């Protein structure tokens, strides 16, 4: 497991478009934006539906599960918050329940609770909510939650 992330070194500033998303993580919900008019889902919470341009929006509570689409292994920290965390894996996660008939999909990212040795493209993951010193900010992270047949790992 990677070392701890010092969240006191990052000041998250929610805004008009994102405040409800942060309210969601506080209640351990992984939300994505949804269009009231056509049902389309997207993330990050941009302020209009990119299929029908409606600005009448709601939130869809995902199951917080997905598949690792890609990943990077950070060995050199950039932010002081991550000095103790390296090496850590940032995974790009394709959410299970946001696929639409026309191929549209939602990917999110997050720091895995697993080490590089365990990660592979194709593995399933589940969200884990991590509390921070700020009671209003809860951060979603991800844990490998099973196995898969078609996986790929960077072995160099």
């Amino acid at each position: 497991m990677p070392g701890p992330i010092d969240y006191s070194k990052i000041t998250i500033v929610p805004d008009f478009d994102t405040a409800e998303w942060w309210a969601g993580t506080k209640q351990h919900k992984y939300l994505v934006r949804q269009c009231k008019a056509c049902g389309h889902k997207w993330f990050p919470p941009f302020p209009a539906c990119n299929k029908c341009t409606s600005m009448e929006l709601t939130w869809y509570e995902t199951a917080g599960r997905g598949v690792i689409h890609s990943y990077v292994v950070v060995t050199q920290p950039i932010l002081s918050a991550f000095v103790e965390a390296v090496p850590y894996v940032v995974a790009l996660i394709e959410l299970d329940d946001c696929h639409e008939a026309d191929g549209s999909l939602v990917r999110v990212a997050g720091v895995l609770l697993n080490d590089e040795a365990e990660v592979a493209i194709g593995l399933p993951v589940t969200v884990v909510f991590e509390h921070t010193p700020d009671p209003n900010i809860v951060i979603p992270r991800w844990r490998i939650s099973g196995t898969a047949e078609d996986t790929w790992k960077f072995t160099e």
Partner: protein
Amino acid sequence: MGALTDKYCIVGVGETPHMRPSNRTTFSMACEAVKKAMADAGLEPREIDGMTSYQAGDSTSSSHVATALGIRLNYSLDIVGGGSSTEALVAHAIGLLEAGYCKVIVIFRSMNGRSGRRMGGQAPSGPVPPVRAEGDAQFYMHWGWTSPAQWFGMSAMRYLRDTGTTTKAFAEVAVAHRYHASLNPKAIMRTPITIEDHQRSRWVVKPFRLLDCCLETDVAAALIVTSRERAYDLRQPPVFIMGGTARTMAPNSAWNYSRPEIHYVAGNYGRNRLFGMAGISHKDIDLISCYDAFTFTTLIQLEAYGFCGKGEAGEFVKGGRLQIDHELPCNLSGGHLSEGYTHGISMVIENVRQLRHRVDDACPGWAEGKHTYDRAAGCRQVKHARIAACLGWGTETTSSSLILRGISA
């Protein structure tokens, strides 16, 4: 051919040295670069009436630079942007010139990219105050996913998986650009490297090693665009602008890669416009610049702009194809990997010098276009350099490009 093909030219180029650190302001460096570009073109300050620049909140303004140099502008604009901005501002300049907003326009980029604002973020040393995570950053910052290496590494990793390419293909790019830097007296990193050197260099963020990553330097560079009629009277052989694209986007360009194929990058959407406007095909291209923030960004744009098929770039670059005297010489100055870092403008400037046949290398007669083509003696002029493509990269979802030709084409 496009309605404006060959109607406008790049007539002057200039830059400061690449420094680490400069111990200067971006204002001072910008003045030097613009002054050198004017001198190169043989233009006086009173003949310049347009100026634009691009920056990331880290630079000076066109109005400051113009005022310092005694230039009165009819048009000025400073835009936000990094890679892919140069080619886009050339397109913008053509529109301004065509519409009559100004007659001679300077484009510059000045940055303390090493000692000032670093694109990959500041190294955390000692007690650092909390960083504010606003806008898009409020999502990716707490994921420790904040630098171009970390972002582009994500599409690079998936690319390796989807195509079976290995990082030896990245190494081919690093080796080629470094070889060119070894022929460039201005370059920071001039010692040639091998594939093995690349493979042995330390990891920065997997799948990128140190030798996959561009340099950070303090530098300013400038170029000047005007009409061909004006260009004929100036000091240098004109370099004609045949066509281009300006910040072409891929669909759904949010930072979280929610496109079906994450390594199908913006150049794929600009390719036909670029070659259509220029009225030429790939086989007419003698040399290219291809934005090398990372080795991978060069590689993936070879596919995007159609120099090879999807997934074939690894095979394509094997055996030194991107090196001078081979099929498709790329980033002849050494690029951002080995010459220095300018957010793209130095790559366009190098192509201009190549097309003039006046590359500033070790040949004593370079300024008069006399080159030996003796690589061992430090000549980096491409033989028969007639047409060049400049392939700019901002992100996977933003790209700009140019096709330029010299007078012998």
